[in-house]
């Protein structure tokens, strides 16, 4: 195989691995920009993945699965909101609680429903999101370079991949070009000022966590009904935390977060292909190093060595109306 083809394959895999990260990172951004820390991405993703696979199996339609996933994650978001916004509980603790809860609950319910050791039954062709061939992809496949980029790299993904990439400009537009977005960001920076302007801080923050729920639900559904064909116990395997890292790495902004997701997705895709590969001048790169790289890079960024990542000012602080 020539190098060009190899690069195309690697980038193709990158698009697939970064899709759930993009959706979850945007989800985290909506929540955190409004002042609510969302460590629960991992658990919500897992819950979404389970609901999607289970409902898609019973109904035989991936869209029903997607709706179920979104409904599940919205419920979990509301739970997170209920603890953090209404009862002013600790946001870190609430997030960890949801992660642990979902890790157990998905397996428990999975065993109770399907008795396959926590796995859901494999989905057939009709119950999964199928690859979409973009118009004209077959016709231009023989055109050198551009043709294969279009037909192999851009075409042939399932709908959720395209949704994830379109969600980035959409999130940017909502965040920076609408009144809702302005209020959402304001509530995360200076809730007192927003309250003075006569806008309810609590309602605003709830809306933000609901947005977060919708997005992370899609990323969960992607894992079990688009990329995979069933739910597996703990199938998110830290993706929620990687998405969180990508969001921090992207400094809580949509487009930088997208690039962080692509970078982390690329590292993930590369890690599986790097096994035993000897790089000139460096020697064999340990796979574990490539796997740890997203986390290492995020720590270095947080330490302020690559620019400065400044979180929203009121992140993690419950709003107390009067003293």
């Amino acid at each position: 195989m020539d190098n060009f083809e190899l690069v195309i394959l690697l980038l193709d895999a990158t698009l697939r691995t970064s899709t759930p990260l993009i959706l979850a990172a945007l989800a985290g951004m909506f929540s955190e920009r409004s002042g609510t820390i969302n460590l629960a991405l991992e658990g919500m993703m897992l819950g979404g993945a389970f609901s999607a696979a289970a409902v898609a199996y019973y109904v035989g339609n991936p869209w029903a699965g997607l709706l179920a996933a979104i409904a599940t994650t919205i419920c979990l978001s509301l739970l997170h909101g209920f603890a953090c916004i209404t009862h002013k509980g600790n946001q870190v603790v609430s997030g960890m609680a949801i992660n642990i809860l979902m890790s157990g609950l998905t397996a428990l319910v999975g065993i109770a429903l399907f008795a396959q050791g926590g796995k859901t039954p494999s989905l057939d062709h009709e119950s999964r999101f199928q690859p979409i061939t973009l118009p004209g992809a077959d016709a231009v496949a023989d055109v050198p370079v551009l043709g294969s980029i279009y037909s192999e790299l851009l075409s042939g993904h399932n709908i959720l991949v395209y949704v994830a990439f379109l969600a980035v400009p959409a999130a940017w537009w909502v965040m920076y070009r609408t009144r809702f977005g302005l209020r959402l960001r304001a509530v995360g920076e200076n809730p007192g000022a927003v309250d003075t302007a006569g806008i309810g801080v609590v309602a605003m923050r709830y809306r933000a966590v609901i947005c977060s729920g919708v997005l992370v639900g899609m990323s969960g559904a992607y894992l079990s009904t688009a990329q995979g064909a069933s739910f597996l116990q703990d199938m998110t395997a830290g993706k929620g935390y990687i998405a969180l890292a990508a969001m921090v790495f992207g400094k809580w902004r949509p487009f930088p977060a997208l690039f962080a997701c692509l970078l982390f997705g690329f590292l993930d895709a590369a890690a599986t292909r790097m096994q035993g590969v000897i790089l000139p001048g460096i020697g064999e790169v340990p796979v574990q190093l490539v796997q740890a790289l997203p986390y290492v890079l995020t720590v270095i960024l947080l330490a302020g060595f690559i620019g400065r990542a400044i979180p929203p000012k009121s992140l993690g602080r419950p709003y107390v109306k009067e003293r």
Partner: protein
Amino acid sequence: MSDSVQLPRWIDVGALPLLNLLLALVVSGLVVLAIGERPTQVVEILLYGAFGYEEAWGYTLYYTTNFIFTGLAFAVAFHCGLFNIGAEGQAYVGGLGVILAALYLDFLPFPIMLIVAILASAIFGAAWAYIPAYLQARRGSHVVITTIMFNFIASSLMVYLLVNVLRPQGSMTPESEQIAEHLRLPFIHDIAAGLGLEMASSPLNLSFVYALVCSVLVWLFIWHTRWGYAIRTVGANAVAATYAGIEPGRYIIMAMMISGALSAFMALNEVMGVQHRLLIDFTAGYGFVGIAVALMGRNHPFGIFLAALLFGMLYQGGAELSFEIPTISNDMVVVIQGLVILFTGAMEHMFRPRVTRIYTAWHLRRRAQEAA
């Protein structure tokens, strides 16, 4: 209501957490009902599995040992206002310290090895906690995110070391060599046999005693030393601490390093006491349970001991459960754990306003009666 009365201590540290715990258990019961089993039967099996026979006690206390260490670790950092989510990684790296000492210094006699192993685990765990602590104290990066990242980095690092360095030649499984027989922590049943007592064999070992010692030491440290005072001051109000001449950064680093060392002591129990070698993921989520344990125990060593015992019971009873009822796996315990963290940690304030209102009304009525 501005004229509400201060809640008495027994409600604040006793009744409220119990109320939250009760709610968590009720919801767990509903989960059991929802998957079609009887909660009473589950409770029965849980209790029998945890305390019903002599061997079970040993297992329960063996799990308790881990949870005391990780619970204390979370609590010490918490007193300084820090969330150390990194106990998992710190314990993992601490295990490296224990195994290196036990494998490469195997000429040492046991009493000296015991001290060396304690120091090695403490140093490795504290070092792993030092980096996030330094970044928090000096560069302002949030310790929650960095400790999460360090859990994953520790996991990759340890897999690399186990596969490439610690694995004995010719072995396919990524685990270290066995610790020499005379350097292992003695099991409690062996100690008892030496004293002429007969006990059922279980993984419970000497580290349980060390966990109790650490509980007392942590209590002394937090409430009866200058450093403990400084740590609590920083945790309560870092700005006020600065005005009082306490430099927050210094105590943030100190609290995190002690926290890391305490997490790492878990490796004494697992690596030196039970497994006798370093296994992949030997920490098995005990670090995260520490969060629940500390929150439930109100970050006080005595409370932590009680909460650790509860979780030890749940873990051991949960193992029994999965034998008895096929539809209920160990995951039930994970669910209970999540619910306990949710209700006693995140929603701890849920009942407070209502309880305060009821107590205030009762208090005022009693005062009126006394006046009359």
